[in-house]
């Protein structure tokens, strides 16, 4: 997940859809986030590259909506409902996730094991993979971000 500044970022992402749970008068998702461009990236235990200032999932409450939707601890959130999460402050990320008017969030997350899965499956499959094949087989999307 290291990037070259100025070049588009490429990552293998997984789409996760979380239904918010109503708890009292709040809608919660059941996980915690850390990171952001205003935070200290060296303290992030989940990132490979310690200069990565993205938003990471730091804790999942067991049995919550995020756990049900297969979100894992250590995942990096690339998009929330179409909003980019790779270059946001911590507070902006929180706001995008906790909009009270939305009850579903669609995340694009990436983790290290996804890349390994993709490379393994490419090896197994002799025929060349097209974009459509991949999409159907693995429910993965090649994600390109041109923000940087």
């Amino acid at each position, binding site marked *: 997940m290291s990037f070259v500044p100025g070049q588009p970022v490429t990552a293998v992402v997984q789409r996760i859809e979380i239904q918010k749970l109503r708890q009292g008068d709040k809608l*919660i*998702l059941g*996980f*915690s*986030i*850390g990171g*952001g461009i*205003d*935070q*200290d990236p060296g*303290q*992030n235990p989940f990132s490979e590259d310690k200069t990565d200032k993205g938003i990471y999932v*730091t*804790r999942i*409450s067991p049995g919550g909506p995020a756990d049900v939707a297969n979100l894992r601890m250590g995942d990096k959130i690339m998009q929330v409902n179409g909003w980019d999460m790779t270059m946001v402050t*911590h507070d902006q990320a*929180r706001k995008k*996730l*906790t909009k009270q008017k939305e009850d579903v969030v669609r995340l694009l997350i990436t983790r290290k094991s996804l890349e390994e899965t993709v490379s393994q499956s490419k090896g197994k499959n002799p025929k060349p993979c097209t974009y459509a094949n991949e999409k159907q087989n693995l429910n993965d999307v090649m994600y390109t971000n041109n923000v940087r």
Partner: protein
Amino acid sequence: MDNESQYSGYSYKSSHSRSSRKHRDRRDRHRSKSRDSSSRGDKSVTIQTPAEPLLDAESTRGDDRDDNWGETTTVVTGTSEHSISNEDLTRLTKDLEESTPLECKRFVGPALGGCLSFFALVTPLAFLILPQVLWRDTLEPCGTPCEGLYVSLAFKLLVLLISSWALFLRPPRATLPRFFVFRCLLMVLVFLFVASYWLFYGVRVLEPREPDYRGIVEYAASLVDALLFIQYLALVLLEVRHLQPAFCLKVVRSTDGASKFYNVGHLSIQRAAVWVLDRYYSDFSVYNPATLNLPKSILSKKMTGFKVYSLDENTTNNSTGQSRAMIAAAARRRDNSHNEYYYEEAEMERRVRKRKARLVVAVEEAFTHIKRLQEDEAASSPKHPREVMDPREAAQAIFAPMARAMQKYLRTTRQQGFHSMESILTHLQFCITHNMTPKAFLERYLAPGPTMQYQQQNGRGRQWTLVSEEPVTSALRQGLVFSLRRVDFSLVVTVTPLPFLRLGEEFIDPKSHKFVMRLQSETSV
């Protein structure tokens, strides 16, 4: 060793138009008469002793010498009738020194300067006195203005006297191989100056018997003023100019690589050499020829390679071919001498540490045997009379238990040549007198000190040869290399200029020092 080679004097005094040269001259003459002629050594004697075999004999003796040698207290003598032992060498040099005559060249410079300055001092007084003596009756009377001039003249002469004494009346430190350019320049300047004043005086005053005495007094006062300015010039040229550092000298001793860096100002090569030597005696550890080479046991193994025999009938190209073959063979052979060197070093270090521990313990214990007698104790203990000793006797009393440990330690660290038993006793006596602890007593022996520590204070000079490719009166500049050679080692000096410093400024407002903690928040959503 340093203190056994030949001596000579060095004079490094600046001598030019100072009024008290006569005092120094008189003092020099006194000094030369009072000391015997043996105290001034001759520069040109070289001692033709076989230095190489002497060193080898010493080092091999050291390797297989019995460690219990000290017990039998035998005396070191020459090993054979063909070599000279260290004691003989010392005796030889001392004999040579004592027989050399007084060196006259050393005093030519100061004597000349003394005469010149005496002449310059006397001149204003002569200018004043001569008209009074020769044509007193035709002189115009000159009242108050002249007396004012007399007063100022007297005080200026006094200032000249005092400042010459303070600045230039110092014992000479070195003789330089060539003329000291600035000093010569100043002497010539003073001579020309005074001569021209005398010329003018002779032609314009003495000849026509000038009656205007006030003018003469003013003339004499202007001479003294000009002398004061020349003294200022001398001060700047000789003392002040070389104070601001401009060059960095790296001094490396050729035998063991001991090196130091010094910052000097603008000097000529010979003056820089004297400067370096001044610092050499107190900064560099003493030169110990016994610690130079790797032990023969390590190096000799390299020599026992296999021999190459040529079966060729043609013997003309034999030697070169054989040597080349031997060198190639030696290079191909696996060389383990570094291994042996490493282990030998470790073993040597261990031995030194062991001996040092024994020495320290022995000295500590020896020092507990005596204590200083307090004033009241002597009176108040008539029942227990203790023998009261002076420092020398006390030193001799406690020297015995530590003598063996000391001797072994000195031999292991190869310092035995520097410290005789007498010198150790003297040092012990010195330490006892000044209430020093055993550690302070041992400080002199545990580490090799600077060369000054081992010099005998007998006023004899040290002979050094300045070897340089440039003329020695030229100024220092970048890339210059010269060396100062002595009989058995030399100091190689390299000159590099100090870098030009561009100092910038940055102002920091004290209120601008503010800090925050780094953020690492975690929010649950």
